[in-house]
C-alpha cells in the first residue's frame, strides 16, 4: 500500500507531467485561458488516462511488441470517443470551449508515455495509482496555469470578477505568449517547492 501511495504521489510533484516532465504542452498552452477550461481538460485526460492504462495493463501480454503503439492508440481512441460524447451531452459549453483538444486527447503524449513506460510493465494496482497521480498532477498544473492567466487576463476567478473594471486587462496573458510566460514561472515555482520538500525529507 505504501508503494502504491508512492506511485500516486510522484505524479503530483516529483514527476509532474507538466512541471517536471514538460510533456503534453500543446493542449496545456492552448486551453488554459481559464481555471474551468484547465480543470475540464485535466479531468477528461485523467479519465481517458486511467481507463486506457488499465486496459493496456490487462492486455499487455497479448500485444505484440512490434505493433504496440497502434494498439495503444486504438485503446486511447476508444476512451477518448466515450469521454468526448459524454462531454458533448452533459457539458456542451465546456466542450465548445475546449474544441479540438478533446478529440486530440487520443494522441496526448502523457497517455502514450504512461502506457509505454508504466502500464505495459506493471501490475494493475500500481498502474491505477500511477495514472491517478499523473492525471491529478496534470489537472492541477492546468488549473494553476489557468488560474493565473484568467486572473491576469480577464480579472476573474472561476468567472467571478475580482479585479475592478477600471483596471485594464492584460490581454497578453490570454494570448499564446502569456501561456509560455506563466508556464515558465510556474515551473520555476514548482522547482523551488520540490527543492524545499526534498531538503525536508533528506
Amino acid at each position, binding site marked *: 500500500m505504501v508503494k502504491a501511495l508512492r506511485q500516486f504521489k510522484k505524479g503530483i510533484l516529483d514527476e509532474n507531467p507538466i512541471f517536471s516532465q514538460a510533456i503534453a504542452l500543446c493542449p496545456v498552452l492552448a486551453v488554459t485561458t481559464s481555471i474551468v477550461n484547465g480543470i475540464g481538460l485535466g479531468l477528461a485526460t485523467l479519465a481517458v488516462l486511467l481507463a486506457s492504462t488499465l486496459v493496456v495493463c490487462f492486455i499487455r501480454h497479448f500485444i505484440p511488441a512490434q505493433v504496440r503503439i497502434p494498439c495503444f492508440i486504438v485503446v486511447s481512441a476508444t476512451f477518448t470517443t466515450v469521454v468526448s460524447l459524454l462531454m458533448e451531452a452533459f457539458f456542451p459549453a465546456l466542450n465548445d470551449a475546449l474544441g479540438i483538444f478533446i478529440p486530440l486527447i487520443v494522441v496526448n503524449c502523457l497517455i502514450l508515455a504512461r502506457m509505454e513506460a508504466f502500464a505495459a510493465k506493471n501490475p494493475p494496482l500500481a498502474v491505477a495509482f500511477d495514472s491517478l497521480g499523473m492525471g491529478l498532477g496534470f489537472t492541477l498544473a492546468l488549473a494553476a496555469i489557468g488560474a493565473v492567466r484568467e486572473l491576469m487576463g480577464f480579472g476573474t476567478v472561476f468567472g467571478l470578477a475580482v479585479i475592478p473594471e477600471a483596471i*485594464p486587462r*492584460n*490581454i*497578453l*496573458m490570454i*494570448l499564446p*505568449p502569456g501561456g509560455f*510566460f506563466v508556464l515558465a514561472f510556474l515551473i520555476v515555482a514548482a522547482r523551488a517547492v520540490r527543492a524545499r520538500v526534498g531538503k525536508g525529507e533528506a
Partner: protein
Amino acid sequence: MEQPRYIVTTTPHIRSRDSIERTMLFVLIALAPAAVLGVVFFGVRALFIILISVTSAVCFEALYQKLARKPVTVTDGSAVVTGLLLALILPPGLPLWMPVVGAFAAIVLVKQLFGGLGHNFLNPALAARAMLMAAYALPMTVSFTAPRTAPDATASATPLMLLESGEFTPAGADFLASFLGNVGGSIGETSAVALLAGGVFLLATKVISWHIPVSFIASAAVFTALFHPEGFSGEVVGYHMLAGGLILGAFFMATDYPTSPVTPLGKILFGVGCGVITMVIRLYGGFPEGVAYAILLMNLTVPLIDRYIRPHVLGKRAKAGQP
C-alpha cells in the same frame, strides 16, 4: 630610495578609458535634451512616467540580482538607461502603473533572465514596449496627448496615426513644429532637434558609430521616396523622417551593443533592414508606426549577420579574387 627607471608590467599596456559606467553616462547625457523637451511639451505627467520607469527599472534589476544571488550591478547605470529609454517611447498619458509593468518586462524578462547586461537578444526597452502594446493595446493607443504648447491642444492622435487614417497629408505641414517636437507622440520621440543633438554627441564621443543610424534613416528615406503609394514627394519623405520614433530608434535603440552586429558592413545591413521594415510597416502595414517592430525583428537577425560577415583576422590576406 631612487625610483626605478623602468616599470615591468604585463600586457595590456595601453588601456582605453571605456567602461560600462562611462558609456551609460554618455548615453544618459545624450538622451537628456529629448527627455527635458518631452517634459516641457507634455507636462509634469511625462516627468512622472520617466521617474517611475527609471526607478522601477533600477529596483527590478537590484531585486532580481539579489534574489538570484548575483552581484548587484545597478550602479553601472544600464538599468537607468533602459528605464529612461522605455519612458521615452511611451505615450505621455499612460496610466502611471504601466511603466512599472514595462520595466519588469524589460529588466527581468528580456535582460536578466537571458543573463543580464550584454546577453539580451532583444532591445529591452523596445521589447517591453511591444509587450505593453500586446497586453494593453487600448491604453497604449489612446494615451497620446497633444503637447501643451500646440496650437490645437485638443488633438490627441499622433501625426503618424493621422497619416495612417488619411486625415492628414504632409503637404504644407508644420515642419518646424515636427523638428522641435511640438507635436503629439511618445514622450521622447517627437523632438528631432534634441535627438539629433544627442546623436551627434554619441558619435563625437565614439559611443556609437555612424553606420547604423545613417543606413537606417537613409534607407527609410530612399524606400519612402521609391515606394510611397502616392508617388514621390519631397515633403512626404521629409515628414516621415521627422515623425515618430525614427530618429530616436536609429541613434539610441538600434545601436544597442548586444543587439547589433559587430562589423561595419554588418551594421549597414542591419540598418538597411531596420529602415526598410519600418517603412513597410508605416506605408503598407496595419500599424501607424513600425520603428519598434523593425528593430526587434532585425535584432533577431544579428547572430546570423555576425556569423556570415566576419572581420578579417589581423594579418590574414584576402583570398584571390576577393577584395
